[in-house]
């Protein structure tokens, strides 16, 4: 148990190290970070001076070392646009993004797990077909289109829900559904196939033969065992949700990290971009670590591997 957790911890550190390198490298993609950071009309002397000040003439390894030590202290430099610390800007927006991703996950779990279970238990009935078709559509539908269509129907036509900004529960509904739909579809399909597999096992037949009724068989015997892959996918989907927030936040003008980073890219505000990518990726890595550790309680066999 302990060795497994230690190993996963070391692995996560390694991943974070890789993440930091890629984030550092973003600025060096074109070969000259000074040209990326400065406005296009900067004079040659300005570029030269900027290079000196920022230390872009130093060896690559030195620059990376400086970036890494800065990143660990939460120092990604100043935002070119806002004149504030890029780290603070991103951290301030984090709660909004977590709120949206969390709400989307709740939407997904609340819809998907019952839908998947009903689909599996009432296999090949109308309910199963409906849930399967909806899941398939959900998996094929681009989020941004769904978001726009929801705005069209609920904000423009019926004027029921606000289409932009953050505020009360009303503001959260449309973005959360938009962001959560793809995850809903995936978890529905996974729950259905997982339950189908478990329901055909011998111990379920034994339980039924012993006269255990339908609800306890489904909820106690089957779901517990079908839950393991669902927990894994929840970890992975959180990453999808954090990344997907970029688009959903843009559509609904949600003041989170995703929208901030899209705007930062339009404004060529790369310190903010770096801080956002680094912090979102780190969150994702930590969530995955937490899920994996949780996993060892659900499925003790994992620890032995």
């Amino acid at each position, binding site marked *: 148990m302990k060795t497994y957790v230690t190993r996963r911890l070391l692995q996560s550190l390694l991943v974070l190290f*890789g993440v930091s390198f890629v984030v550092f490298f973003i600025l060096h993609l074109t070969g000259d970070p000074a040209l990326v950071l400065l406005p296009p009309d900067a004079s040659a002397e300005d570029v030269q001076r900027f290079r000196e000040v920022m230390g872009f003439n130093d060896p690559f390894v030195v620059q990376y070392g400086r970036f890494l030590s800065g990143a660990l202290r939460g120092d990604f430099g100043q935002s070119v646009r806002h004149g504030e610390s890029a780290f603070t800007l991103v951290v301030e927006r984090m709660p909004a993004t977590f709120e949206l991703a969390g709400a989307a996950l709740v939407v997904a779990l609340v819809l998907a797990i019952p839908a998947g279970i009903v689909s599996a238990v009432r296999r090949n009935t109308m309910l199963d077909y409906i849930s399967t078709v909806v899941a398939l559509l959900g998996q094929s539908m681009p989020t941004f289109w769904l978001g726009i269509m929801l705005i069209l129907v609920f904000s423009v036509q019926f004027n029921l829900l606000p289409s932009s900004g953050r505020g009360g529960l009303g503001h959260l509904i449309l973005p959360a559904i938009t962001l959560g739909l793809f995850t809903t579809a995936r978890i529905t399909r996974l729950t259905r196939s997982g339950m189908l597999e478990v329901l055909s096992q011998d111990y379920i037949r034994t339980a039924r033969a012993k006269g255990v009724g339908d609800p306890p068989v489904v909820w106690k015997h089957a779901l517990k065992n079908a839950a393991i892959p669902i927990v894994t996918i929840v970890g992975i989907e959180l990453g999808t949700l954090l990344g997907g927030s970029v688009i959903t936040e843009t559509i609904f003008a949600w003041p989170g990290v995703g929208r901030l980073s899209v705007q930062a890219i339009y404004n060529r505000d790369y310190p903010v971009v770096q801080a*956002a990518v680094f912090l979102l990726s780190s969150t994702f890595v930590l969530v995955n670590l937490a899920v994996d550790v949780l996993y060892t309680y659900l499925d003790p066999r994992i620890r032995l591997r």
Partner: protein
Amino acid sequence: MTATTIAIPAKRGAARSEWLTLFRRLARRRTALFGLVVVALVFAAALGAPWLSPWDPIEQDITNRLKPPGSPDPSGRVHVLGTDHLGRDLLARVIFGARPALLVGVAAVAISGVIGMLVGLVSGYFGGRTDDVLMRLADIQLAFPFILLAIAVIGVLGPSLPVIIVVIGVSSWVVYARVVRGAVLSLREREFVQAAQALGSRDGGILLRHILPNAFTPWLVVATLDMARVIVIESALSFLGLGVQPPTPTWGGMLADGRVYISTAWWLATFPGLAILVTVLGINLFGDGLRDTLDPRLKV
């Protein structure tokens, strides 16, 4: 010599009939067949766009802007899906929009598919330290919120077709690598591989001739389903203004334009989105059918 000349056509014949059997089994799944037909139609539309499309997708007509679907223009021709904010025919733009979507889809899948296949083959076959390093690389790759990384990189390099294809292609190899690696791990213990090793075949030859053909089917399933994902990403990038640049029509770009007119011209945002939905649904249905036919136990 004669032996080889006889052996080769016989082998080809066998392979062909195998594919034919596969196709027949696939065709029996109605949803998969439906998906295949949809995908074929979208490809046909992309290839034949100049002949199929009744209007020029770029030609503007400011006097005829934001016309609802079915409006005729003064010459009596009908804009079946209406016109956009610059008076361009929406149907023509939807048809031409299939081109960048499919081009990026096919090219990016080709890049990530080849990288993933190579990594999976090497990782699974040689195992040990190589495998460890490659799989940790895969973990790092998976730890990235992909869209965010893609927009950052494209933002720096500037949006262009090659950049988009390479960015998506280079960052999507992990799924292929894992699936191929899994297949190779079991293949390398099989008798025909061990026989080839015992006979002194070189590793490269074994990988190419004996392992690759057998690891191909799971790879194909992943490639099909991944293409759906790539098309959604392409349209998401063009939605954010980081895709193929105007005036080239892209589904995502049309959606972004349409979003501005959402309260007055619903058709602008509706039809390009439907085009994406239908295309991606078709690919997903076909891919699901392919997986169920080829390898029902595959988890992708």
